[in-house]
């Protein structure tokens, strides 16, 4: 008998509908696992157990009455704590918003409620979705379920930990420079940053207006597809939202990669600081096995990574400074050290710097979309350049050593998927990243599903060993 936490969302949905499972049992199982494990993982900053059981009871009643709200009906989920939840504290993991109780749900939250989802609670993040891991915030940092002495990556840190620890199979994150894909990579989950404009950001606290994306971290590609199917769609209240039909993300999921042209922009990661031989080998092996599965895999050259990084960082910091400048002046001591040091220096970015970054952004988006993705259906590239670093490697007062290459596709807005790609010798997840043309999430997820099957053959089932949380040896950050 499959344990409930290992039931794919689609299978749970079937059982909810044939009466062999109740949403209440599913929610209670998640709550029990949270009670058992989250003391070590610290992935939740607020548990909404009463709400979850009420949502579940309502779902059971509706399904019994033949009311079907779709594939998330009766399924537990959790939200990063920058997502507004009406009547429920939403802190951004910051002292500055510790008492904030929004009046209404964000649009993604509204869609999940309308779809009959079961809200378990709010998840840890790096403060305002930047910086971290930090020990000077109102809540501790989430820990990596594969090894509690290692970071989750961020900023959707609690989402990565909760999904990898199977406290929940799908959780919402946000991604401004890699904040979905980074923790997905470090925690061994699937992470989808959808196309810019596919998922509404209304009611999600902004980090950077033109780089922010909302999307799921999930236990499988199919779980990510189901979640995205529910949360996607036009929202006139989000200026970036694009008015076009939501594609069918599920029906072609098993179609494989036969005949697909996959570009391999190895100039991005070869020789990059922080690249481990294991990650390089995993990418090469994945390229070979995708070719063996029928894809046409070819080298392609993209602009150099430092250009993407500089472009994205300057835009991100300038926009974040615009959001936070009043509080940086009035309440500097209330920010955690890492957020403060990153954003306060953005006061030095001139208007011309920002405009040059936006001009470069157009050039980079053209290079990716009008050149590389004209000849290729997808790109396969690095996500994290190595496994999750240990907390002990992070100084308290300086940025830490997180080497990930996710920023290019925040700059361009293309959909990008972080996929597990085996384990390091130290037993931590490795990762790869797939990229598609705008609004081609269906193709992206289809190829992701093919990678999931390939990496399952590597002995990695996205399932952490049960002993991982048995004897936590917590090590604080370096002093």
């Amino acid at each position: 008998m499959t344990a409930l936490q290992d039931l794919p969302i689609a299978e749970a949905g079937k059982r909810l509908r044939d009466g062999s499972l109740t949403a209440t049992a599913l929610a209670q199982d998640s709550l029990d696992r949270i009670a058992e494990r989250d003391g070590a993982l610290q992935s939740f900053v607020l548990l909404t157990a009463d709400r979850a059981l009420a949502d579940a009871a309502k779902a059971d009643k509706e399904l019994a009455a033949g009311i079907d709200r779709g594939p998330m009906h009766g399924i537990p989920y959790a939200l990063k704590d920058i997502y507004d939840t009406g009547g429920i504290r939403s802190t951004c993991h910051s002292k500055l918003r510790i008492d904030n109780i929004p009046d209404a749900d964000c649009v993604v939250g509204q869609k999940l409620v309308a779809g009959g989802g079961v809200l378990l609670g709010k998840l840890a993040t790096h403060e305002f979705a930047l910086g971290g891991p930090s020990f000077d915030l109102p809540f501790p940092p989430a820990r990596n379920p594969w090894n509690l002495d290692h970071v989750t990556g961020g900023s959707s840190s609690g989402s990565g930990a909760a999904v990898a620890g199977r406290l929940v199979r799908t959780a919402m994150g946000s991604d401004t420079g890699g904040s979905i894909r980074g923790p997905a990579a470090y925690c061994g989950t699937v992470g989808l940053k959808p196309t810019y404009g596919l998922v509404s950001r209304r009611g999600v606290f902004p980090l950077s207006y033109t780089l922010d994306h909302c999307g799921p971290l999930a236990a499988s590609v199919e779980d990510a597809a189901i979640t995205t199917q529910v949360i996607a769609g036009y929202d006139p209240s989000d200026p970036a939202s694009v008015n076009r039909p939501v594609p069918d993300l599920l029906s072609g999921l098993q179609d494989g990669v036969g005949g697909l042209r996959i570009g391999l922009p190895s100039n991005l990661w070869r020789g990059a600081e922080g690249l481990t031989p294991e990650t390089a080998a995993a990418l090469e092996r994945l390229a070979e096995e995708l070719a063996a599965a029928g894809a046409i895999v070819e080298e392609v050259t993209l602009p150099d990574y430092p250009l993407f990084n500089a472009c994205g960082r300057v835009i991100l910091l300038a926009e974040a400074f615009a959001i936070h400048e009043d509080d940086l002046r009035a309440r500097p001591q209330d920010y955690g050290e890492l957020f403060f040091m990153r954003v306060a220096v953005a006061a030095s970015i001139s208007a011309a710097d920002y405009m040059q970054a936006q001009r470069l952004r157009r050039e980079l988006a053209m290079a990716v979309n009008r050149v590389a993705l004209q000849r290729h259906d997808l790109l396969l590239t690095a996500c994290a350049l190595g496994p999750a670093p240990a907390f002990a490697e992070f100084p308290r007062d300086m940025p830490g050593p997180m080497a990930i290459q996710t920023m290019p596709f925040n700059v361009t807005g293309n959909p990008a998927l972080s996929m597990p790609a085996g384990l390091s010798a130290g037993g931590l997840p490795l990762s790869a990243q797939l990229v598609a043309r705008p609004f081609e999430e269906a193709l992206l997820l289809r190829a992701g599903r093919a990678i999931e099957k390939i990496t399952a053959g590597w002995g990695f089932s996205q399932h952490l060993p049960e002993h991982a949380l048995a004897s936590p040896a917590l090590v604080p950050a370096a002093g």
Partner: protein
Amino acid sequence: MTEERDPELDMVLKRAGIIPPPGRYRGLLATYRDLQAMLPLLRGPRTAAAEPAGIYVLDTITREPAP
């Protein structure tokens, strides 16, 4: 040991009206220098006609519900 200072960073913070809490200057200086090193990368050869991404689009504003 005397803390290293950077007059340009001090001027930036002063002009912005930001007074860093004690103990945060070392990290600020590191991130400031990292950021400054990136800025030249933004400036490539372009004509005046090379527009930025994210130009003003009136449609996205007029479609929003009134506040």
